């Protein structure tokens, strides 16, 4: 909406700044997704298996610092993902943020020394290629509400 209040002369600059902020949001979404899930998973492994249906057992899981940290980071992930969806197309956001899968796999390989089979390397290559292809398209192709008005 603010775009309309700017003079056309600064339109180009606005677009560059706009694209830059969207790129930063993409990075925040990917990084918080990875860190939140890794932290949550680490915490839940320390807590152990919860087989009961009692909410108290789940509350106890939140007392684990890794679980609590993971949940806090995932809240940031949800908020930044929604902010990103307010600015960019869903069909742009989905493939681009799928890079999180690649980061988890590569991180697991180099930090936890997980074995990566050739099938998984192929999967990593496919997702990376998909993310690059989507990144090359404009981040938003739909009109903003203010632009839609006659």
């Amino acid at each position, binding site marked *: 909406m603010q775009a309309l209040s700017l003079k056309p002369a600064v339109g180009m600059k606005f677009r560059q700044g706009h694209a830059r902020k969207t790129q930063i949001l993409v990075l925040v979404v990917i990084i918080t997704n990875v860190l939140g899930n890794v932290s949550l998973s680490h915490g839940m492994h320390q807590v152990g298996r919860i087989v009961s249906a009692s909410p108290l057992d789940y509350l106890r899981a939140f007392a684990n610092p890794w679980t609590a940290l993971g949940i806090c980071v995932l809240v940031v992930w949800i908020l930044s993902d929604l902010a990103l969806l*307010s600015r960019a197309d*869903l069909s742009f956001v989905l493939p681009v943020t799928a890079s999180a899968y690649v980061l988890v796999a590569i991180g697991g390989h180099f930090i936890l020394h997980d074995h990566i089979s050739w099938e998984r390397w192929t999967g990593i290559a496919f*997702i990376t290629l998909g993310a690059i292809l989507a990144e090359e398209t404009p981040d938003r192709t739909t009109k903003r509400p203010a632009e839609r008005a006659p």
Partner: protein
Amino acid sequence: MKWLLVAIIAVSNTLGDVLNTAGMKRQGEVEDLRPRSFAVMVKRILRNPLVLGGFAALAVSFFALLSLLSISSVSFAVPATAISYLLETLLAKYILGEDVRLRRWAAATLVAIGVVMLSF
């Protein structure tokens, strides 16, 4: 039962993302990355039926995933994720009116295949 859960996960996940996107677009762009802008965004979301509906759909997807994980291995959840990528791209084009051409179809397809390969 397993495949029914896979279908529920894929459909509710897709519905959740599409509703969230439609709701956030209607609500207007988050202009900058300051905490204040995010606080305003959250306040508006609480009165945004589309996004609240999106959250409800994602909650259904989450609990269906938990049920699926309790009766089968994680690898069973993978097809649901892969299908979601394609289904969401389809709805993004026809419901959200996004300009989805060859490049974005190729991107979604590559990611969907990649997610399946990564589970091996």
